């Protein structure tokens, strides 16, 4: 009896994981069949934000480091795509990704090397300061970056040029194809992230998060792990920026500015940073909430602020955290009843 009670939740989490991701995937794949173009486009943005938040949460949820400068890596991805187009005339989405990721990894490694020398508030301030440096570079070097006008990025070709969107009706075709393209990249990214956080490396990050002293006394080299986590986190968030820019058609310094870093923090908290799927839910939910807030009221920032306050006070574990607590409670009461 006792053994069964211990074994059950374990069995359940595995089952929930497989069932949940299968259902989620089927739903996501069938959405464009049910909703209009605009909703599909919004959901594409949502999936992209989910990738950004997943990357961010490798630092916050799994390593215990709160970055207030992740706009830097998102913007880095976006601007790298714009430069690849401008300087090398590249129009292929795959080349954007393949060439953008190493650039993002190198810059994340450099900036991360500085940031992980500190933790807590000092870490947060350093990430914020460095992101503001990139922001002012993008703003001031207008002959390279277009200044506050930004740089235009038209629709690229997909799948090594097999699909292009020239000619009439290009936009709806692009949205429908690009949705599935982003969904594919999202599934792959989430799977890679899931493996990373469940790998020995990921466990070591969580150990460092929980207890730095003890982690040192089982022989882990703390700073090296934090650096690696920073590099991976920045690269993931940059991937989101790479995917975002063709959809938006334009990159401006806004994606490097600190309020956008705040939004990445917000969406992760909204979904719940203690759960793997929290940032995914948060990224999608935030995109829809913000879009409707902006559309329905002039005071959308006030509305979002209220959501944030309610969130912190009532749902500190986010949407996913709250749902899992409720389901656990239901499960427990059923256990007692039977």
């Amino acid at each position, binding site marked *: 009896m006792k053994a069964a009670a*211990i074994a059950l*939740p*374990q069995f359940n989490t595995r089952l929930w994981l497989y069932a949940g991701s299968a259902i989620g995937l089927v739903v996501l794949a069938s959405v464009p069949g049910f909703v209009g173009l605009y909703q599909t486009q919004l959901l594409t943005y949502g999936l992209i934000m989910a990738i950004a938040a997943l990357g961010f949460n490798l630092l916050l949820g799994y390593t215990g480091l709160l970055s207030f400068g992740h706009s830097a890596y998102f913007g880095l991805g976006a601007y790298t795509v714009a430069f690849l187009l401008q300087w090398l005339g590249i129009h292929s989405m795959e080349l954007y990704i393949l060439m953008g990721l190493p650039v993002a990894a190198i810059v994340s490694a450099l900036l991360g090397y500085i940031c992980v020398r500190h933790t807590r508030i000092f870490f947060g301030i350093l990430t914020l300061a460095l992101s503001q440096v990139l922001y002012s570079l993008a703003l001031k070097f207008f002959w390279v970056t277009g200044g506050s006008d930004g740089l235009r990025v038209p629709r690229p070709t997909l799948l090594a040029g097999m699909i292009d969107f020239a000619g009439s009706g290009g936009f709806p075709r692009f949205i429908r194809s690009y949705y599935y393209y982003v969904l594919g990249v999202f599934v792959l990214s989430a799977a890679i992230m899931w*493996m*990373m956080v*469940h*790998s*020995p*490396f*990921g*466990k*070591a990050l*969580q*150990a460092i*998060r*929980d*207890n730095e*002293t*003890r*982690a*040192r*006394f*089982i*022989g*882990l*080299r703390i700073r090296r*792990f934090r650096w690696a986590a920073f590099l991976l986190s920045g690269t993931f968030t940059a991937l989101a920026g790479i995917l975002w820019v063709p959809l938006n058609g334009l990159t401006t310094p806004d994606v490097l500015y600190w309020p956008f870093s705040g939004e990445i923090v917000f969406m992760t908290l909204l979904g719940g940073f203690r759960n793997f799927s929290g940032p995914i839910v948060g990224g999608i939910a935030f995109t829809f909430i913000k879009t409707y807030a902006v559309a329905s009221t002039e005071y959308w920032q006030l509305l979002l602020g209220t959501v944030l306050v309610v969130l912190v006070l009532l749902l500190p574990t986010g949407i996913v955290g709250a749902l899992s607590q409720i389901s656990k409670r239901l499960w427990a009461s059923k256990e007692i009843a039977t």
Partner: protein
Amino acid sequence: MSLLRTIDLHKHFGATHACDGVNFTVEQGEFLSLVGSNGAGKTTLVNLITAHLQPDSGEILFEDRDITSLSVAARIKAGIARSFQLVNLFDGLSVFDNVALSIFARQGKTAKIATLAANDGEVRRETREVLAEFGLAAKSELPAGELAQGERKLLDVAVAYALRPKLLFLDEPTSGVSSAEKAQIMDTVSSVVRSGAVTAVVIEHDMDVVFRYSDRIVMMHEGAFLADGPPDAIRANEAVASILLGISAPASSNAA
């Protein structure tokens, strides 16, 4: 050859000499207790040997090799591990993962990123063995933060033990638990340590426990060694008795 030797080790904090020229030796295979009143310098000595602190002067030799300037990680690799007085665990991770991480770290597998930790059969097997030895097998899937205090103390030792050290420092493995649990914890710890042929140095306040489990007892007072010998000799030592009576009269009268 002694397993560990410190030569004229000094460490002071302001005007306090926590370690005042300590020459400490640990022989292969012994179960040694380090005793003394609060502030006698016991934890400082362990901190110096495990690289938690750097000495002001002096040398630390492990297996006749000078390790004074080695990092924490390098000393662990050489074979020195420790547990903590105030339990230091990875509270968000399961009991299983707490121990498994020590094994991953020891085997140099913590850089592995493209494989699931749960799929490493070798590590899983060893983790289960260690948890069974410490009587924690039934709790393996619980988060470490949800264990009772006595179990947390045991897990803290298990995490250090899973590094398979040659020399294991246990800083008050029974502090903060009831007297009934103390015996149970010490029985488990001493039997695991002895069966694993690990040399252990235990910091302990409870003299009943100390006399019962130790091969040798070293008494520290104000940063220096006051007495050093087998339990019987320490029991008969008047200087020790006077200090013990001075600091904890009820406990020592109980012991006598």
